[in-house]
C-alpha cells in the first residue's frame, strides 16, 4: 500500500476578523450596520464577518463609480488604463498562493484547483484585457471609435469567486467602464482581497467598488442607476433580472445554468474520454455551470466505459481542501448540499441506479461523495435539472442522430463535449449541437481569448475574447 501522507499547503493568507464594503477606494461599514458571517465549508467554522450592503450603500457605490467614470476613468487613454490592468495582473500573480489558499478556505474547493486553475486563469484574464485597452477600435472594426457604457453593475456566483470577478471586472475596466460588483454571500473573501489589491495598484477611487451581500443587495444593484448589468448565476435569478431591466436603457448580459451533454462515441480515445468525463463533472465538486452532467455514451461501449469510469472515480481523493493531493473538496454551503442531496434522492426514487465509491467523509463540513447514476432516462429530474454538484447522469444512445436529439433536449444550452477520433464526426456533431461552447476530445477548457456563453436558457452575451468586449462597449 502506498498511502500519501497529509500534504497541507503551508502558506496562510492574512484573513481579517471583519471586512467592510469597498466604496470609493475605502472600506466602510454598511449604512444600517448590517453584517453577515462567512463560513469555512470544510469545517463550518466562522472565518470573518463582513458588512452587508443595503440600498443606501448601493446608491453610494454607484455614485462613486459614476464620479470615477466621469472624472478620471472614462476619459483616461486606453494605454493608461492598460497600465493599471497590467499592474493588477502582476500583483495577482505575485499574491497567487495567498489568493489560492483564501479561495480554498472560503469556497471549499481543493487547493490544487485554486493554485493551478482559478488564480492563474484570473491573472491571465487581466493580462489579456490589459492588452486590449488601447486597441478597442480593432475589437469592433468598421464603425466609430467605441465608447464605454459608464457604470456597470456585476453580480457573480460562488463557484469561481475570483475567476468570475476577473471575467467581469477585467473587460469592464479595459473598455473604460467603472464597476460595482456584488460577490456571492458565501464567498466574498477573494473579492475583498482584490479590493485591497486595487488600492495597492493605486487604482483611482471609485473605479472598482465591492459590495458584499445576498439577494437583496443584488436586487438593489439591479434597480440602481447603472448602465449595464452583468450576471452569472442561476436561470431563475437571471429571469427575474431580465424582467427588472426590461423597458429600461440598461444593457444586460446573462450567463446562467446548464445541463451539458458529454457525448462519447464508440471510436473515442477511451482513456482520455474517461478523464474528460471525470473532469467534466467532478471538477470543482461539479459546481460548474458548464459541467458535463449528462454523459451520453454509445451503447456498444457503454459497459466498458462505465467500468473504467468507476475504477477511475474510486481513485479520487476527497477531503481537506488545503491538502495538495485533494481532488474533491467541500460543497460550498449547507443549502447547496441539501439541494444536491434532494435531487440525488429523486434519481433513486425515479428508478435510476446510483453508484458511489467507498470513501470516508469528514465529520464536520459539507461533503458529498462523487455519484454516478446509470439507467437514467431523459424524463428523470436528474437528467433535466441542473444539480450543480458531483452527480453524473449516464444515458446511452445507439445512433449519432439519437445522441443529438437527446443532447439538445434541454432548455439549457451552455456547453457540450464530443469524444471521437474521427474529425468529420466532431464537425458533424458540433454543427448540430445547440450549445454556446462545444469541446472536442477535451472538457472544461477556458482561455481569456476564447468567448464563453450560452444559448437558450443558459443566457446571452459572451465573456472573453474579442466578442466579450462588445458587451462593455457602446458600438
Amino acid at each position, binding site marked *: *500500500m*502506498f*498511502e*500519501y*501522507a*497529509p*500534504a497541507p499547503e503551508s502558506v496562510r493568507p492574512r484573513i481579517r476578523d471583519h471586512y467592510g464594503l469597498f466604496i470609493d477606494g475605502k472600506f466602510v461599514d454598511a449604512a444600517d450596520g448590517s453584517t453577515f458571517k462567512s463560513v469555512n465549508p470544510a469545517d463550518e467554522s466562522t472565518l470573518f464577518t463582513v458588512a452587508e450592503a443595503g440600498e443606501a450603500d448601493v446608491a453610494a457605490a454607484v455614485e462613486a463609480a459614476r464620479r470615477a467614470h466621469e472624472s478620471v476613468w472614462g476619459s483616461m487613454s486606453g494605454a493608461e488604463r492598460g497600465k493599471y490592468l497590467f499592474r493588477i495582473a502582476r500583483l495577482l500573480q505575485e499574491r497567487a498562493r495567498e489568493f489560492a489558499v483564501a479561495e480554498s478556505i472560503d469556497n471549499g474547493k481543493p487547493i*490544487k484547483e485554486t493554485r*493551478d486553475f482559478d488564480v492563474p486563469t484570473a491573472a491571465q484574464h487581466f493580462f489579456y484585457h490589459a492588452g486590449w485597452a488601447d486597441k478597442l477600435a480593432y475589437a469592433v472594426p468598421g464603425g466609430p471609435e467605441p465608447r464605454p457604457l459608464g457604470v456597470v453593475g456585476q453580480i457573480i456566483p460562488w463557484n469561481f469567486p475570483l475567476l468570475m470577478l476577473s471575467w467581469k471586472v477585467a473587460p469592464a475596466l479595459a473598455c473604460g467602464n467603472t464597476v460595482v460588483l456584488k460577490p456571492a454571500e458565501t464567498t466574498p473573501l477573494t473579492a475583498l482581497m482584490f479590493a485591497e489589491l486595487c488600492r495597492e495598484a493605486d487604482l483611482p477611487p471609485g473605479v472598482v467598488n465591492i459590495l458584499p451581500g445576498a439577494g437583496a443587495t443584488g436586487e438593489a444593484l439591479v434597480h440602481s442607476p447603472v448602465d449595464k448589468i452583468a450576471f452569472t448565476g442561476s436561470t431563475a435569478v437571471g429571469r427575474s433580472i431580465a424582467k427588472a431591466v426590461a423597458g429600461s436603457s440598461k444593457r444586460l448580459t446573462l450567463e446562467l445554468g446548464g445541463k451539458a451533454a458529454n457525448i462519447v462515441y464508440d*471510436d*473515442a*480515445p*477511451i*482513456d*482520455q*474520454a474517461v*478523464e*474528460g468525463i471525470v473532469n467534466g463533472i467532478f471538477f470543482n465538486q461539479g459546481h460548474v455551470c458548464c459541467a458535463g452532467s449528462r454523459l451520453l455514451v454509445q451503447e456498444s461501449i457503454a459497459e466498458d466505459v462505465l467500468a473504467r469510469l468507476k475504477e477511475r472515480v474510486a*481513485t479520487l481523493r476527497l477531503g481537506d481542501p488545503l491538502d*495538495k*493531493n485533494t481532488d474533491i473538496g467541500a460543497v460550498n454551503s449547507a443549502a447547496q448540499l441539501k439541494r444536491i442531496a434532494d435531487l440525488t434522492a429523486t434519481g433513486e426514487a425515479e428508478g435510476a441506479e446510483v453508484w458511489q465509491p467507498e470513501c470516508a467523509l469528514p465529520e464536520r463540513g459539507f461533503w458529498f461523495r462523487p455519484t454516478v447514476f446509470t439507467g437514467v432516462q431523459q424524463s428523470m429530474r436528474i437528467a433535466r435539472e441542473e444539480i450543480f454538484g458531483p452527480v453524473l447522469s449516464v444515458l446511452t444512445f445507439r445512433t449519432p442522430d439519437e445522441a443529438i436529439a437527446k443532447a439538445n433536449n434541454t432548455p439549457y444550452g451552455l456547453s457540450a463535449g464530443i469524444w471521437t*477520433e474521427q474529425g468529420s464526426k466532431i464537425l458533424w456533431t458540433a454543427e448540430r449541437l445547440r450549445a454556446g461552447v462545444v469541446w472536442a*476530445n*477535451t472538457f472544461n477548457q477556458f482561455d481569456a481569448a476564447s468567448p464563453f456563453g450560452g444559448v437558450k436558457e443558459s443566457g446571452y452575451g459572451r465573456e472573453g475574447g474579442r466578442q466579450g468586449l462588445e458587451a462593455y462597449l457602446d458600438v
Partner: protein
Amino acid sequence: MGSMLSGAEAVSLVRALPGVDAVGLEARAAGLGTRSIKKESKAQAIDLAIAMIDLTTLEGADTPGKVRSLCAKALRPEGDAPPVAAVCVYPAMAATAAEAVAGSDVKVASVATGFPAGQVPLDVRLADTEAAVVAGADEIDMVINRGAFLAGDLERVFEEIKAVKAACGEARLKVILETGELASYDNVRRASHLAMHAGADFIKTSTGKVGVNATLPVTLLMMQAVRDFRAATGTQVGVKPAGGIRTTKDAIKYLVCVNEVLGDDWLSPHWFRFGASSLLNDLLMQRRKLTTGHYSGSDYVTVD
C-alpha cells in the same frame, strides 16, 4: 504464459485498439505529476524506488571490474537501504555479474538481441539471447524490430518476440519498444499489446541510447496497456521505464502513476522497474536528507 494467438490474430486485435488523444494523455500525466509526496510516504517511496531499480551499465567501455563494483553497490547501496532489483549489463558481462550477485535476491538482467539497434539477423539475435541466458541472466531485455514495426509488418515483430521468448527459457523477457522511435502514442499502445500477446513478461520504454527515452506520458500509456491486457486475458505484465529518470522527484511521479493507475498489484519490484544508473545516488541522498535534514552532494555517494 505467452499467447495462444497466431500472429495474424494478434495483429488484428492490435489494429483495432482505441486511439490515444495526445493532449489528454499528457494532461493526465502532468496531473499525476503534481501529487505532493512528503514525510513518511516519501521515505516509503524512496525505499520502494531503490528496490525497483535495474542498476544499469551499458557502455562499450564496461570492464569486469566496473561490473563487479556495480554489483557490490546493487547488493548494498548504503546503510540499511534495500538492495536494488537487478543489475543490467551487456551479455559479455552477464557471467561476471551472475557470479558477483550469486546467492542474493538481486537478479541479473542482460540486454540482448543486438542491443540497442537490433539491426542484426534474427538467428544472431536469438544466439545473443541464448548466450546471455547460459551466462546466467535471469532476465533478458530485448529490443523490437522498429523498422518492421514502422513499415507495418507487425506480424514479423510478433513472431520475432515469440522466438526470443522461446530462446529465453526460464528467464523473464523484457521487451524494449524504444518508444522514442515509434513516432506516436497510438504506435506505443499497439506495440505494447503486440509485445504482450507475443509473450512479454515486461514491456520497457527505451534503450537509453536514443534522443527521447522514458517519459511520464509514455509510461502512463504503457501502464494503461498492461492494465487492459490483464483485464482482457488474465495475464499480468510488468512495466519498466528506462533512460532519463535521474531524480527522486521524477521516480516518485512514476510511483504515483503506478499507484493510481495500476494499484497495489504492480507496486513491487516483480512488476515495476526503473532502468537507471544515476537515479540510485539521488535516491540515496534524498534518503539521507530525510534522516539528517541535510542534502549532502555527489562526493558523499559512490560513483559506481
